[in-house]
């Protein structure tokens, strides 16, 4: 029940916020309460999952694998939790940074609808259902990215929308072919059928379509163009929300789907994914270095950091996948946080552009601290979360004796540092008379926009310093992900 609530409640909240949209105060408070409720719910789910390994619901009580089965394992649980947390933070952040116009125009409704899609994607074990949740998610994201209808938004949105629809169509075509081949839509059932079949390797040609579909979503190397073209255009809380949720759903799907397919053509997938991972990391980080707009730098870095997650997946060892998941969690928190700080910078100075910024270190020292935490986190400095991410990725590569990709990962992390320092140098240290003047008249930061930033900073540090329980959990999660029989049995005869 709890699992289904994760889908139904956001929908309910979306409707309620839509109904309440004219009463701004009531709207904001109810949205806050809803978001908190979801975080609590997902906290309970994590607790349950650590006890029972799998939470399974046969929706409509139909026999597995005929109906839609929702299953939450550790990976799903932790993703659910982090995404609802991000939504909570973004809602708090939006409290004062978004104008009432946005709230009146269903901003929160779309956020909850987006969360519904994301939660659905994290819980379902049915491929077509996954497609539906993808559509819910991208439809909401289309609306969010164009909310406000500025010229940049629309320009970016054309690309964003086209490529995302294309990705869904590839995905759907893949489902069609897969169903024609195997007669099933359930991933656990599919895994079971594949292991029993002689022709399992033949499924690989279909897997291409899935890979392209998920690949566009997760913004891997030759498919990522929509992301840097559009992520910096909408209002900042929306960008932050996207950076935390969207591409990670793609990566999650890759993890889940490839864990079924991978073993049937191990050699190919390893080489292929490692190449993709390396190129994604390198291209992303190099393009980021050339930018002077904070949001663009951060957007390009999303691409680069997706590469690390794919790297962990490509290794396909328990440690590798655990590292990938850890990296994903770290990146969700740190990247969203970095975007939110960028929003604070814009709020204080009126610009995101590094060339127009300067001297914030003196004029806004707290901002410098807030920025430093996610920035160092992203650059992988100890003891922040990114360090553990980097460490575990490198450790996993060494363990699998993939030294080339390890070298690439290390070098890329150097350039990541370079970009972060660039923001620091230009935005915080550089002398700039104009900003000093323009900053004087700016209002003080509101408590509601600082709170999430501070909180996420603390999470970034805590994820580093108290990595043990988290990593233990994730290692179990990755073992669970690799255990196809366990998955099948859990879905077939749930507790």
């Amino acid at each position, binding site marked *: 029940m709890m699992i289904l609530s994760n889908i139904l409640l956001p929908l309910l909240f979306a409707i309620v916020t839509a109904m309440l949209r004219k009463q701004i105060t009531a709207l904001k408070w109810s949205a806050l309460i809803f978001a908190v409720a979801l975080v609590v719910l997902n906290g309970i789910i994590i607790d349950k999952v650590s006890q029972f390994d799998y939470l399974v619901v046969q929706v409509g009580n139909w026999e597995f694998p005929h109906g839609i089965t929702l299953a939450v394992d550790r990976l799903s649980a932790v993703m659910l939790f982090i995404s609802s947390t991000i939504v909570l933070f973004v809602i708090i952040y939006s409290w004062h940074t978004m104008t009432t116009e946005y709230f009146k125009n269903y901003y929160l409704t779309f956020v909850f609808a987006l969360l519904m899609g994301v939660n659905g994607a994290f819980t379902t074990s049915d491929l077509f259902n996954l497609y539906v949740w993808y559509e819910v998610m991208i439809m909401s994201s289309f609306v969010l990215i164009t909310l406000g209808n500025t010229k940049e938004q629309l320009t970016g949105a054309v690309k964003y929308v086209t490529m995302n629809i294309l990705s869904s169509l590839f995905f759907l075509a893949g489902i069609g072919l897969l169903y*024609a081949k195997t007669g099933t839509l359930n991933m656990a059932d599919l895994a079971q059928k594949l292991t029993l079949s002689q022709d399992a390797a033949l499924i690989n040609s279909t897997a291409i379509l899935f890979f*392209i579909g998920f690949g566009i979503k997760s913004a891997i190397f030759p498919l990522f163009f929509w992301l840097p073209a559009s992520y910096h255009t909408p209002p900042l809380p929306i960008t932050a929300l996207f950076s935390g949720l969207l591409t990670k759903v793609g990566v999650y799907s890759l993890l889940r789907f490839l864990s079924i397919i991978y073993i049937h053509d191990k050699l190919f997938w390893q080489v292929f994914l490692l190449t993709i991972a390396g190129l994604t990391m390198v291209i992303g980080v190099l393009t980021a270095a050339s930018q002077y707009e904070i949001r663009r730098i951060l957007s390009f870095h999303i691409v680069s950091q997706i590469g690390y997650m794919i790297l962990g997946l490509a290794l396909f060892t328990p440690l590798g996948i655990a590292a990938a998941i850890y990296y994903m969690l770290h990146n969700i928190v740190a990247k969203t946080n970095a975007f939110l700080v960028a929003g604070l910078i814009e709020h204080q100075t009126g610009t995101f552009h590094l060339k127009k910024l300067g001297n914030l270190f003196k004029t806004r020292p707290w901002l410098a601290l807030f920025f430093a935490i996610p920035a160092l986190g992203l650059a992988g400095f100890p003891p922040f979360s990114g360090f553990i991410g980097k460490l575990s990725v490198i450790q996993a590569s060494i363990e699998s004796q993939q030294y080339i990709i390890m070298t690439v990962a290390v070098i890329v992390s150097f350039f990541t540092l370079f970009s972060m320092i660039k923001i620091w*140098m230009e935005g915080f240290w550089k002398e700039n008379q104009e900003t000093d003047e323009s900053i004087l008249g700016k209002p003080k930061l509101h408590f509601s926009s600082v709170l999430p930033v501070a909180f996420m900073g603390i999470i970034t540090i805590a994820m580093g310093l108290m990595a043990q329980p988290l990593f233990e959990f994730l290692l179990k999660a990755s073992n669970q992900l690799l255990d196809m029989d366990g998955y099948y049995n859990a879905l077939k005869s749930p507790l």
Partner: protein
Amino acid sequence: MLTMLSIGILAIFPLLFILFDEEQLKKHRYVLLLPLLVNILAGTIWFFQLQTGPIEHHFQWITILNIETIFRVDWFSWYFFMLINVIGLMVFLYASAYMKSYDGYKRFFTFLYIFTAAMNGIVLAGDLITLFVFWELTSICSFLLIGFNHREANSRNASLTALLITAAGGLALLTAVIWLGNLAGSYDIQKVLNLSNALHRDSLIIIFILIIIGAFTKSAQFPFHFWLPGAMQAPTPVSAFLHSATMVKAGIYLLFRFTPMMGEMVHWYYVLSLTGVITMLLGSFSALFQSDLKKILAYTTISALGTIVMLIGIDTKMSIKAALVFLLVHALYKASLFMLTGVIDKIKGTRELKEIGNLWKSNPVICIVAILSLLSMAGLPPMLGFIGKEVMYDAKFQAPGIARLMLLLSVISNAFMVFISIKLMVLLFLPNGNQPSSHSSKSKPAMMAGPVAFTIIAFVFGLAPYSLSDFFGNILSQITFTPVQIQLKMWHGFNVVFVLSLATILLGLLLWIFENRITGLFLKIYRNLFTINLTHSFQHIIQYFLKFTKIQTNRIQHGVHRYYLMIIFLFSIAYIWWKLLMTGLYVPTFNTENVSLLTVVVTSIMLLTVGLIVTTRSRVVAVVALALIGYGIALLFMTYGAIDLAITQIIADTLTMIIFVIVLQKLPRFARLSSKRSRMRDALIALSVGLSITLLILKADMVNIHQPVSDYFVENSLTKGKGQNIVNVILVDFRSLDTLGEITVLAVAAIGIATMLSFTLNKKSHG
């Protein structure tokens, strides 16, 4: 717990600053010394505890990754620890007065405390990960402190250079650390070192190189040395503390630690000794041409660091001993000299050598202290520097291999040092015609305390070096894992070493006497040697890199939407074809069983219509053709028994077309925008996509692994779903969650269209 305390107190202490405002803190600035005094006390306690063996504290961090935080105090750590904290105490005292005129007093000390904590962390760390964590922390603190005057472009560039280089080294070190940990199954330094013999040699060489890079970047060894002179942009207390006495020694600490493991490799010997020698000569030689006092000191620091690295590389007991002694010598005189530079800077308002002078008259105390420190630098008696140099010569003399050559080079390098010392003494203290400046000529006692204390220490130990023998013996045993007895004496008797010392001094004096003649020659050599200014090159590299990334970005993220799509399609095609070829192509068989005339006709019409859409320039024709295809598909659905689908398709199609027509009213005609060539190219790509999809579908038909799940629906539709229309039952019952998602998509789309069409932001476009 004392270990945690000694690091923690420094890290937490700055939090107290919230209670004070800047002025109050300046007033009660002696509070700032408190944590360091605590640490020195801790050091004293450890001194007694250490007699019975090393102290260890274990903390679990991430056991699942074998990461355990260990703090371990042995004699060697203790030595560094005391060095850091005693020098730290004096530097803090000094800085508390020095920084009074600066903005950001609190900030400065916050950074300095965190740095000290990190530095203590490095030397107390008993495992490699903890060591690395603190290692990186010192890099960041150094970055923040070098860029303390961040409004100046010079400071910013210098701090960037320093950070990038040390961070690159840090990454190399991290890789090495993880690799070692992976080989040894633990990050505990003791365990890693003990396992050295069992390790696989091939990977060990790479690890070795990585460690070396880490240590060399931190300790400013050639070719990474150039960040250190730049780092002199930092306020003087920082230079005294970070960039001469402590942080740059971290790399050396690391090399010492790995000596028992790596020392057995022949590479160790060559790489370290050669780099050390080059750095030593480079540093002392470059120092000759500097006119800024701090720059001179920076280059001599580089030289001294090179000397130590060289000694470690030689790796005999004597040389390690010499390195240890020299480390102390250098820390004492260099910290003292830096602090004095700051004092002079404050008094005279400049650090330019030529503009200072005549200090003897106005500030005799400074002069005496400075002269003694300079004597130590020159390696003259009665200071500890003399002992250091003697031991060094001795070590090289007794060592095998190319050490003799190095001995010669050291003599030259030391002669430069002697020369620089003399030059400084003369230029600074004797009258040179400059008018005494109007600045306050009084030096504050807080600022003089450090230099005086260090000089006294150096003097006392210089006179009574044997008091240090046991101590260094203990350390040496720990580093080399074998018990060692050593002797330190002032007077070794008339032997080769003594002769060499004498020669050094003479050579230095000669250089001084013939300065005018030699300088020209040296300058020529210098200019020829250093046609490449590494600092500038580094900045250039960054600029080029930025330019390169810009070009590259414009190539990749160029903004032309259709090329993005093209790449996606090309990638897909390539991928599909590869897979198809790998798994074998499928030869389709034509199955007439299901074909009716109607479907053939419908399909053919659809194919023609598709051609029409692609080629037409009329929007109306295109829309109508699109609708026709939709209806054609509906017909196909109908013939194969999908009536619901057909109806839905027709209605949805009609609605789409209506919206199309409404929207197109307002839009211009199709223009022929692309050239014939690009059309041909696109057509080729498109056909290829189509072909691959067709083949993929045919291939999919070949495989049929299992019976579809849908039999279940047929069986249970009426009994459990209470409906005859199976499709509808699936939609509202078997897979109702899909439908829920579907109507959510629709709802979001509808509301989204409403907001899109009616909501436009009032404010001007941002960003």
